[in-house]
Structures are given as structure tokens and as C-alpha cells.
């Protein structure tokens, strides 16, 4: 049965995994859109920005329909497992990281473009060089994604099933305890969640400052 420690650990494991995946996919995606020039680019940018506001419960429903036995990916048997939760949260967080990365890279591209092209760096290679160069300011984008993942309940509760001992995380437990009328417990969990998010933000801020001082 889920102990408090297991619940917090699972929340972190699911959300951090999702953010890691979303970052690995979203940074190159955002960078590519930032430096690329192709028909429909502006529409894509608007769409990407709009997807930042994807309702978690809608994502949960869509992933549920995908992973359900009655759905196309039912064979994988992923429904009601932490992996399904990671998938749902990755989908939720990917647009945030990609869109914010695109904005930052596009701003930096204005400064770097001519010099990089002069040296022979083109396309995705140049974009990824930029991403690495501005990596510390991209921390903000990653943090935004992490905050979204840790705070959401709609997606994980549908695809995870809030199963005791298996897929119960902080937000779903808060929902459960509230509906049981155990408000003090729900509130304490809520405070733990908030404290966690504050700690993560503080750490990232310190990292950014240190990097600023070192690299200029």
C-alpha cells in the first residue's frame, strides 16, 4: 500500500521522466522550427504555442483511448502503469518546452546567425549549437514543464487509475483524500507539493546565476 514516501517518490519519478523525454524531444524540435524556413512555419508556431495550454484531462482521455485494450496500442498493456503516466505527461509538457525553446533560439539566432553560417554551420547543427550555448536560459523552459507535470492531476488519474501502491501520486492522492473528506491530510500533501516546486525553482535559479557568472 502506498506510503507517503512512495507517493512523493513516484510523483517525482513520473514527472522527471516525462520532462526528460520532453526535453530530449522538444529542444531539437523547437530549435529546428526556430531556424528553419518552410511553408506553414508560422501556422506551426501558432499551433505549438496554443498546445502549451492543452487541458491535462483531454490528454489523459486521448492517451487512455490509445492505450486501452480496445484501442490501437492496447497490446502493449501499458494502461494503468507508471509508464502510461509518463507518456501522458510527456505529451503535455512537450509543447511547453518546444515552444519556449523556439522563442529563445529564435531570439539568439538573430544575434548568431551570420557568424554561424559564415563558419559553415547550417540548419539543425547550427540550431543545436545555439541550444547548447543558451542552455542555462532554457532551464526556465524546462522548469515550466516540470511545474506543469508535477501539478497536474487530470492526465495521470485517467491513464494511471490512481491504483493504491502502483500509480498513486501526490496530486491524485490529494484528489482522493479531498473526496474522502480528509481535508487536513490533503492540505499537508498540497504543502509538500508546493515546497517541492519552490525548492526546484530555487535550485534552478542558483544554477542559472552561477553559469551567468562563469560564462558571461
Amino acid at each position: 500500500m502506498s506510503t507517503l514516501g512512495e507517493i512523493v517518490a513516484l510523483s517525482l519519478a513520473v514527472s522527471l521522466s516525462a520532462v526528460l523525454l520532453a526535453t530530449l524531444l522538444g529542444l531539437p524540435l523547437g530549435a529546428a522550427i526556430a531556424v528553419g524556413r518552410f511553408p506553414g512555419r508560422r501556422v506551426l508556431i501558432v499551433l505549438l504555442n496554443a498546445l502549451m495550454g492543452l487541458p491535462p484531462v483531454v490528454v489523459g482521455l486521448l492517451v487512455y483511448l490509445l492505450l486501452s485494450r480496445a484501442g490501437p496500442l492496447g497490446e502493449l498493456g501499458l494502461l494503468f502503469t507508471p509508464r502510461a503516466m509518463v507518456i501522458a505527461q510527456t505529451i503535455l509538457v512537450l509543447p511547453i518546452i518546444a515552444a519556449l525553446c523556439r522563442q529563445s533560439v529564435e531570439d539568439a539566432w538573430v544575434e548568431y546567425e551570420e557568424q554561424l553560417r559564415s563558419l559553415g554551420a547550417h540548419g539543425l547543427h547550427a540550431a543545436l549549437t545555439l541550444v547548447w550555448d543558451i542552455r542555462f536560459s532554457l532551464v526556465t523552459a524546462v522548469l515550466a514543464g516540470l511545474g506543469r507535470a508535477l501539478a497536474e492531476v487530470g492526465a495521470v488519474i485517467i491513464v494511471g487509475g490512481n491504483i493504491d501502491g502502483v500509480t498513486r501520486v501526490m496530486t491524485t492522492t490529494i484528489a482522493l483524500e479531498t473526496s474522502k473528506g480528509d481535508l487536513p491530510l490533503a492540505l499537508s500533501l498540497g504543502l509538500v507539493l508546493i515546497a517541492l516546486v519552490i525548492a526546484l525553482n530555487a535550485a534552478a535559479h542558483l544554477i542559472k546565476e552561477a553559469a551567468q557568472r562563469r560564462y558571461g
Partner: protein
Amino acid sequence: MAASGSILPLTLRDAGFAAGGRSIIEGVSAEVAAGPTTIILGANGAGKSVLMRLMHGLLQPTSGVVAWRGQGAERLRRGQAMVFQRPIMLRRSALANILYALELARIPAAERGRQAMDALREVGLAEVAHRPARVLSGGEQQRLALARAWALHPEVLFLDEPTANLDPGATREIENVIKAFDASGTKIVMSTHNLGQARRLGDEVLFIHQGRLVERAPVDTFFRQPASAEAAAFIKGELPWT
């Protein structure tokens, strides 16, 4: 510097560039050959920067032709380097910035360290090799940009108003490096509106006025006896001590 098959001369045939409905460069025809240091001179807004970028390939002409000798985009890229008015450095050490350029030029990894340090020594920045490039002074960063270009051993070096933002001391250091480039056989194409600098470094002048190539002459001839009215007005307008 190129082993076999030089990419010079660069030929412009009625080259033009227009953007946003406005013509910025129009009907420029010229052959830029190896040897003399070519100065592109003109007032602000005359189109010098755009012309440089057309030559270097950062912009494609909207009319006419800009053609180097020989084929192969790869060789073209490696045959040229450009230094801009503001040096753009990555958030890495001075050495790492040069290594990055060498990596792009596909220099074998084992060679890169040595060649990069050689370039730094050439411009006198060897002691700051491991300092973050962005904390160096403006003059040092511009010297670093030149070191980065040096490491690539280009056949042609473009410089777009390289000392416009620097004080006289730093300016002199940069000019010394440019002279070293010239002495080693690199073709220099440089834009400036500093007449003294043009005289110090240049062999020939391409004078641009309102997007057109109005006059081309050896440096001495140009300053002593400008053939065109526009050139004469330009020389008079700019005070000789700048």
C-alpha cells in the same frame, strides 16, 4: 593558401540586391582578383555591408550573378572567412571557440588543438586561451575573431568595419593582425568608413554610393585625384583625422 585551384577571382556581373521593395545594391560589376587588399568604401547606408554579404554568400543576389572560380560549395566555404563589426563568440573559452570553427571545417580532431593554439599565439591571445570568450574586452574578442579566421587559413578574408567599435589602441592591434594576414598571402576585402585606415591598409578602393559601384582605383589615385564627383564629396565630407 588554397592548395590546388584557387577560388579567386570573384566575379560580380550586374549584381543587385533588393528587399522590401527597396533596391539596396544595383548593377555592380567587378572582378576581385588575388593580391591587392581591396577596401570597400562608402558612407553609412551606401550598401557596403550588403555588398560584403553578397560576396561572402550570406545573401543571394536578387539580380545578376556573384560567382567564384571553381565549383563545390564545401571548397567555397573553406576558402573564405568573415569577421563582423561585432565579434560573435559562443559561451565557451577562447580556445573552444576556435576549436568549434575547426570542427566545422572538418579538421581532424588530433590536429585541432595545435592549430587553435597557433592561431591564438599569432594574435597574442595565448595566455587567455582558457578564459570564457565573452568576458574578454571588445578588442580582445575581435582579435579572437581574427584568430578564429586565421586558424581556417582562408584564401579570402572579409572584414566588415572590424574596428568601428574599438578605441585607437585596439584598432592598431587589429590592423597589425590584418597586415599579418596580408603578408601570409590571404586576400583581404574590407569595408570601412575610416579614411586613414583605408590608406594604411588598402591597395585599391571600391567606392560605393547609394548602392552603385561609382569608382574603382588604386588607393593613392583615389585619394589624390578622385575621378567621380561623389567620391570627391565623400572624401571632403569625412575629416582626414578619423
